[in-house]
């Protein structure tokens, strides 16, 4: 065995890098299901000792998913920036942890971390996260800065943006508009106004796109809209002349899992080109919006790596961010508690995963937001989402999801609410995206203290939106 560790009279042996990564992962149900998890806390600790000594260069030599089988691996290795990696090349995973924490606490942290990002592979990011406490994931996450733009600017220091998510069980325009109004009156929607349609019918999607575009233009709101349908549908709608701002797609960290979503790298590039051809951005030209989530590869049976071994779900999730960054995205978010208890069992596992995902995304230079959420078959409740929301606010999360009263009446899960966004901004002193904040001021919603003024909707200029 190449990887062994001896502790308290017992030798722990691991057959490969894939196995070390899996055994070193903090406990979660999806890894138990996949068979990648450690069998005991002692084995997990031993694997972490082993992982700490793995040189970073090993990740360039030993792909966790074979190069010849998987276009995501090829993307990662062919696109690796050796120059950016050079200052880190001598480090082990344990050394990277110390470098990150020291760098994050030092002067010029954001620039130093941004310079390192192209030299880091997702597997390196995932590996180092496994050696880090929640506090450390927050500290390094908070030191990163990933700024993107379309009509608003996302990711600036001191800002926390929101996706206003006005979903409706039958895509009813009046119902969607009512939720949009509620969200705007509560200062939400600066990252995107984004609808998950209940139907994939292209005509329904087009109708929702037109509705959001009309609201945005009528009130001159510096934000962008998105109807989260399959990339191929969006490409067709762009060709048909529909008002598409952002191209959405769910993505994952293996070629096979992406095939399960019905996409590959080529179709993502096609979607990006189509949106760029419209030239609708005003402060930036980033046009892609991706969602991810730990467990998606396992859910599709597409989680096997080198040697046929199951790869842990957090490493595969980090690989999804490598897919995202190849398309210069405007927004990326993990939907961390959505997938269910078979992948993240309870509040503790969801909280940990949310912090890992945010850290790994930002480390790789991805504009990371988080859908802080849970389903009703998981062992979690609103106390857990409050905790994760508060931690992510401290960690500098770029944006969160906001739905009326935390209740997504179409998808049947609980995310953060408009009120939650105001709470997170108030306790942290963070503000909306600058362009959106100026708009809130113009329409009389911005209070002197930077918060959102309570207004009578019947008297607001926005009331005719419904």
């Amino acid at each position, binding site marked *: 065995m190449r990887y062994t560790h001896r502790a308290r009279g017992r030798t722990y042996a691991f057959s490969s890098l894939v196995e070390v990564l899996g055994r070193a992962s903090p406990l979660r149900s999806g890894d138990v299901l996949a068979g990648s998890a450690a069998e005991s806390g002692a084995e997990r600790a031993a694997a972490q000792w082993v992982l700490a000594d793995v040189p970073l260069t090993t990740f360039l030599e030993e792909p966790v998913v074979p190069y010849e089988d998987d276009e995501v691996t090829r993307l990662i290795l062919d696109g690796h920036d050796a120059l950016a990696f050079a200052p880190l090349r001598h480090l082990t995973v344990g050394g990277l942890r110390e470098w990150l924490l020291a760098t994050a606490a030092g002067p010029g942290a954001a620039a130093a971390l941004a310079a390192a990002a192209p030299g880091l592979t997702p597997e390196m990011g995932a590996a180092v996260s496994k050696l880090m406490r929640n506090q450390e994931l927050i500290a390094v996450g908070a030191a990163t800065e990933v700024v993107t733009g379309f009509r608003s600017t996302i990711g600036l220091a001191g800002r926390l943006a929101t996706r206003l998510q006005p979903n409706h*069980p039958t895509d009813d325009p009046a119902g969607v508009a009512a939720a949009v109004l509620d969200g705007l009156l509560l200062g939400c929607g600066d990252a995107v106004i984004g609808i998950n349609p209940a139907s994939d019918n292209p005509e329904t999607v087009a109708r929702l796109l037109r509705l959001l575009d009309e609201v945005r233009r009528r009130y001159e709101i510096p934000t962008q809209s998105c109807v989260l349908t399959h990339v191929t549908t969006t490409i067709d709608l762009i060709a048909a002349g529909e008002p598409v701002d952002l191209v959405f797609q769910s993505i994952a960290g293996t070629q096979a899992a992406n095939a399960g979503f019905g996409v590959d790298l080529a179709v993502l590039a096609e979607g990006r080109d189509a949106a760029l051809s419209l030239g609708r951005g005003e402060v930036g030209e980033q046009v892609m919006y991706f969602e991810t989530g730990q467990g998606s590869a396992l859910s599709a049976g597409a989680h096997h790596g080198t040697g046929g071994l199951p790869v842990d779900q957090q490493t595969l999730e980090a690989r999804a961010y490598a897919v995202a960054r190849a398309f210069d995205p405007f927004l990326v978010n993990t939907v961390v508690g959505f997938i269910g208890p078979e992948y993240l069992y309870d509040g503790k596992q969801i909280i940990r995963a949310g912090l890992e995902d945010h850290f790994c995304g930002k480390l790789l230079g991805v504009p990371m937001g988080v859908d802080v959420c849970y389903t009703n078959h998981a062992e979690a409740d609103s106390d857990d989402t409050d905790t994760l929301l508060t931690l992510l606010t401290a960690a500098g999360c770029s944006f969160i999801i906001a739905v009326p009263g935390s209740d997504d009446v179409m998808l049947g899960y609980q995310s953060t609410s408009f009120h939650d966004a105001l709470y997170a901004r108030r306790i942290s002193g963070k503000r909306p995206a600058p362009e959106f904040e100026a708009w809130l001021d113009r329409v009389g919603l911005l209070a002197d203290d930077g918060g959102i003024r309570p207004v009578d909707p019947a008297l607001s200029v926005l009331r005719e939106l419904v």
Partner: protein
Amino acid sequence: MSDFWAALRAHTPARIGQQRFGEAPGTRERLEFVTAHAAARDAVHEPLDVSALVADLASIPGLAAPVVVASAAPDRATYLTRPDLGRRLRDPLPSAEPGADLVVVLADGLSATAVQRHAHGVLRALRPLLPGTRWAPPVIATQARVALGDHVAAAWRARMALVLVGERPGLTTADSLGAYLTWAPHPGTPDSARNCVSNIHPPHGLDHETAARTIASLVHGARQLRATGIALKEGRLELG
């Protein structure tokens, strides 16, 4: 202010227009949320009343008597943490005449209530919309996930599987039914090869007749295309 939002609530079951005390909703809204969460968690564990469902299906003209099966997940707790077991049959299927056009699987999924309330209504509306279709006997499956339909269809060599499954209970809706259509189903079929009609739960969600029309149009489209999934987009084929 309350009148303003009350009028809008006619258009959406969403929790719009909540009060603000500081940045938090009111006490009543807080406790309504807690109550709804408790009810949704209970709904996950509600068992399917199989004999009542069998009786409901018996009243649909022309539908064969259902075959009742169980997944390999022995109980709800296992079902929740072992998706692999919920996708497989516990026992081999009884034999049926092979080569039907369509097999319908009624799977409890995460909401038995949804299947109990809406599955027979959808099927009753769907049957007359698919003349000339050879239906296999419907299958009622407990502790079952969508992919269990692949095993059923493969065993009976059916060309298409329609799985009517209880979707995860939300705070506002605990009886939402999803319908998944798969062409040439086989174990290991990826989700991108299915089409889904979700949120079937009148009065707030899709009604049974609308859902049935959408499903029927997908079935027609699947026959033309000899495929389901992202290549098949509802509405597109009728235009051509």
